[in-house]
């Protein structure tokens, strides 16, 4: 049941993020909205891997290697999320740098004003 | 042995042509309540032109104009058998059939046009334009009629067509295929340079059109052609539509009657402008021709 709730919130976050990104004209607000959407995606991914009544995939005293298969949840989504978060950060940093450079060149942060390239 | 007989035919037709032209002009004058020219007038003109000494030329093509014209007329006459049945007067018809005659008409016209254009006289150029436009429009009904006749008799050789028309008057094409003959006779008016369609020469407007610059011996050649060419054309009409001629008197009579048809129409109607004549042919003559083919 927890997984469903988490996944629902994840989807909600994605939708809110997308809505925010596609309506705000300020570049920074768009980037914030995208980070929210990324967080939402991460939550969904982890929620998919969750199985009720099981513990984290760390083999230590509490979870000996032998009975790991019955006790731990699916480790693969976690590996994917970890990479996704880092990549999300990479892209956000790049977008921020772009936003900064655009502001430096064009003195505006409004996406509507960056339309020389069209048709 | 074919050539002497051909020359004989030529001699007969030339003389007949001169007399016939003068007679037709006398008739036209009498209709206009004028006395008209004496019948031997053409011979006098011929002698006068050949007699003239002073002669100038505008270049080679100027020479070739009248030569093309006359050889066109003579060729047309000789390529079609004058008298049906007689070996003597079948001239050179072995060389080609009806289509040769049909297209040989253009030989003369082309030559005349080239020669007149070389003369550099604007009137002759205007005359050529009118002449070509009108003749091509007049050609169409005649071509349709010929095609209809060819379909009717399933042959293109003139002697066979005339042979098919022998016997009583009723099997002349004029009765067996009246529409074709009607179209052909309407087309005939266009090619005879008589009043309704004589805008080409337009005697008052541009002095006699294309042959304006021609004089002395050139004009003489053209006048002999003016005698031969109409007769040669009428020989074709006669052979195709009116049962051909088995002897010279019948030949003279039928040719004269056909010529009268164009003369009668000529004296009555005023002159058409060129586009009027083109439209007239395309509106009246061509539909009849088409009907003659379709109903065949």
């Amino acid at each position, binding site marked *: *049941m*927890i*997984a469903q*709730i*988490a996944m*629902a*919130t994840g989807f*909600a*976050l994605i939708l*809110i*993020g997308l*809505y*925010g990104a596609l*309506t*705000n*004209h*300020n*570049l*920074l*607000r768009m*980037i*914030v*909205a995208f*980070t*929210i959407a990324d*967080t*939402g995606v*991460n*939550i969904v991914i*982890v*929620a998919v*891997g*969750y199985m009720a009544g*099981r*513990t*984290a995939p*760390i083999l230590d005293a509490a979870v000996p290697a032998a009975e790991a298969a019955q006790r731990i*949840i699916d480790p693969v*989504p*976690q590996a994917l*999320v*970890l990479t996704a*978060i*880092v990549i999300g*950060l990479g892209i*956000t*940093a790049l977008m*921020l740098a772009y*936003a*900064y450079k655009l*502001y430096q060149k064009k*003195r*505006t*942060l*409004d996406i509507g004003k960056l339309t020389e390239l069209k048709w | 042995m074919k050539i002497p007989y051909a020359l004989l035919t030529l001699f007969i037709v030339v003389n007949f042509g001169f007399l016939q032209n003068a007679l037709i002009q006398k008739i036209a004058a009498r209709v206009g309540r004028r006395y008209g020219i004496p019948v031997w007038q053409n011979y006098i003109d011929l002698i006068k032109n050949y007699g003239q000494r002073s002669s100038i030329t505008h270049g080679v093509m100027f020479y070739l104009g009248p030569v093309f014209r006359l050889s066109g007329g003579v060729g047309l006459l000789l390529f079609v058998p004058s008298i049906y049945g007689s070996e003597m007067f079948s001239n050179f018809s072995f060389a080609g059939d009806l289509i040769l005659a049909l297209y040989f008409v253009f030989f003369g016209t082309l030559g005349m046009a080239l020669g007149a254009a070389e003369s550099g006289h604007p009137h002759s150029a205007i005359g050529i334009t009118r002449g070509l436009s009108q003749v091509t429009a007049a050609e169409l009904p005649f071509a349709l009629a010929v095609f209809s006749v060819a379909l009717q008799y399933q042959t293109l050789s003139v002697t066979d067509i005339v042979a098919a028309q022998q016997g009583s008057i009723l099997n002349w094409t004029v009765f067996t295929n009246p529409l074709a003959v009607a179209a052909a006779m309407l087309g005939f008016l266009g090619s005879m340079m008589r009043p309704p369609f004589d805008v080409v020469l337009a005697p008052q407007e541009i002095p006699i059109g294309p042959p304006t610059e021609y004089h002395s011996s050139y004009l003489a050649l053209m006048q002999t052609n003016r005698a031969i060419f109409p007769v040669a054309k009428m020989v074709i009409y006669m052979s195709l539509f009116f049962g051909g001629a088995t002897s010279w008197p019948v030949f003279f009579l039928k040719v004269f009657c056909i010529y009268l048809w164009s003369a009668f129409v000529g004296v009555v109607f005023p002159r058409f402008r060129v586009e009027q004549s083109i439209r007239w042919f395309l509106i009246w003559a061509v539909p009849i021709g088409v009907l003659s083919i379709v109903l065949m």
Partner: protein
Amino acid sequence: MLAMTLLLCVAMIGAALVAIRTDGLPVSILAAGLLSLLASVVFLVLASPDVAMTEAAIGSGLTTFLFFFVLGRVRSGEREGGEHD
């Protein structure tokens, strides 16, 4: 356990809505940072500690800082481009 996740999820959605709708840009960035923090707690609930640590360190820590840094550099721009559409 269930109650806590529900609470966290509602908080997260609230934080997200604040981040989108609010006028001030700093507030918006802070709300995003808070959202990240809540997310890392949810990750703990979903039994994935690795992800929780990453989310906490990178998601709320560095991203928020990057935003503030650029915002600082672009302070005047924020006022002029602030209106929604």
